[in-house]
């Protein structure tokens, strides 16, 4: 569960986005798409808490795995200064990932910004299993997009959207996907990760589309293992257990949920 991974490679792959390749045998073997690692940065009290990051790819043969992160605060700024050979204290793989079988039709991957990270790993799995894959990827601008071909997509159909129109269609990735559905050009299971407003929009639109929809959520975490109840998301009214309302722990019952399970 807790392991020291060794940094093998650190590479800037887009504006403020860093690809980090790490070596640790058991994580590389156990990791499933959608799971995350809870990473301690340094040994001191600032940053104090671990930081959660989705696993963006894994190769048991190479005993290696990767994460893709956006520099957004103090912890990720410190991580951007890592060098090959440095050690990283990782807890994981943690959480419930994307369960994909049985999959009917194509896998429609919908990524917003750094939400691309867990979907790259999922894509690696699905392509390996011979599934048809269509990628919808949105970001504020072209500069903030990682180059998909760089990560394994020869053959995967990809469609881009940017807010400023600098790559692909102008607009959001949800609008892009909606266009495809409205024209009846596509159907399949949707797997998504991105900012909360994007996932909420997807969840709402899917009331009409009625596609199988799973997404990976982010919430602030302390323990990362289900002990503190810190990282909750409200459950949808259809999923009530004890009490009048229930919360799911993103770290344990998630981070991947069926769209019908949660109230965003």
């Amino acid at each position: 569960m807790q392991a020291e991974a060794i940094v093998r490679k650190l590479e800037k792959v887009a504006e403020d986005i860093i690809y980090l390749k790490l070596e640790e045998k058991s994580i590389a073997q156990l990791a499933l798409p959608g799971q995350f690692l809870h990473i301690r940065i340094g040994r001191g009290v600032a940053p104090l808490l671990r930081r959660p990051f989705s696993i963006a790819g894994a190769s048991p043969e190479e005993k290696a795995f990767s994460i893709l992160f956006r520099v957004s605060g103090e912890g990720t700024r410190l991580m951007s200064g890592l060098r090959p050979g440095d050690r990283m204290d990782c807890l994981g793989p943690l959480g419930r990932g994307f369960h994909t079988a049985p999959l009917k039709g194509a896998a429609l991957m919908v990524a917003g910004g750094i939400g691309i990270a867990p979907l790259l790993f999922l894509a690696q799995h699905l392509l390996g299993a011979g599934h048809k894959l269509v990628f919808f990827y949105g970001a504020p601008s072209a500069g903030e997009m990682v180059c998909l071909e760089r990560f394994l997509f020869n053959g995967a159909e990809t469609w881009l959207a940017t807010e400023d129109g600098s790559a692909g269609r102008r607009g959001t990735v949800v609008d892009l996907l909606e266009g495809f559905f409205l024209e009846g050009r596509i159907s399949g299971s949707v797997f998504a990760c991105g900012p909360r407003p994007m996932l909420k929009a997807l969840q709402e639109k899917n009331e009409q589309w009625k596609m199988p929809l799973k997404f990976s959520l982010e919430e602030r975490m302390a323990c990362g293992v289900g002990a503190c109840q810190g990282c909750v998301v409200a459950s949808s009214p259809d999923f009530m257990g004890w009490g009048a309302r229930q919360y799911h722990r993103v770290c344990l019952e998630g981070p991947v949920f069926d769209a019908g399970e949660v109230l965003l």
Partner: protein
Amino acid sequence: MTTLSTVLGPLELSCPVLAASGTFGFGEEYSSMLDLSELGGVVVKGLTLEPRWGNPPPRVVETPAGMLNAIGLQNPGLEGFLEREMPRLRHCGTAVIVNINGETEEEFAVLARELSSVEGLAALELNVSCPNVPLGGITFGSSTPILQKLLKKVRPLCRLPLLVKLSPNVTDIAGLARVCRDEGADAVSLINTLKGMVIDTAAKTPLLGNKTGGLSGPAIRPVAVRMVYEVFQEVNIPIIGMGGIMSTEDALQFFMAGARAVAVGTANFVEPRIMPQIISGLRAYLEEEDLEDIGSVIGAAHRET
């Protein structure tokens, strides 16, 4: 042969390091990462009579050398606890202490009475210091007459060792500890979290769903050590010290201030194996200093040199 065993009135612990309430769930989550029987005990998540779903998210946020939490006592209620958690806890290999919470005196009384007859519990910890619930919580632990009235009602019903967890958000911690002693509590737990707030400047609102939360972690350690020191000096009651313990050295500060046991909270999130590490550190310390037991360290900072 050195020993780490410690005695808090009727509560005897094989080791003076406990997991603090709310940071260790019901003991299950961390059981794959450490051997619970190495610990002195586990204080489980705050329990209420009825299930509680807790506060809206966000519930946690990091702060300088600490964190705020506003969980709001999410827990399965007494019945759920007895059905789902207790069968496993009974065999977990360490002392189990239940942290109990009420909105009314009656609720505390029922919990104390019902839990007294449950097999496999080592003690109850009366939480009169939760900063994150609108009713009950800290109101019971902020004034001596209110605390006294509560203890007069609960103490006679509780047949287990009774600990009282006090809040640092008070002016006279020793006065409250004195009430605990006078009303027959067996020990006090010092301290719960300090009430605080973080504002999300982009959204121009408090960041936590509950607006305020409780501050824990290294940031509060000096406050906690001072309170343990003060209570030890003024009131004759066993103390469990906690607040920001992250190392053997930190734990020693609490023992020297007068704690007979310590609890580790936030540090578990950072380093899941921190408690076994602190325990072996304490053992090494006793050997180095040529001391037979942890008792010889307790209150050491009060001795004239």
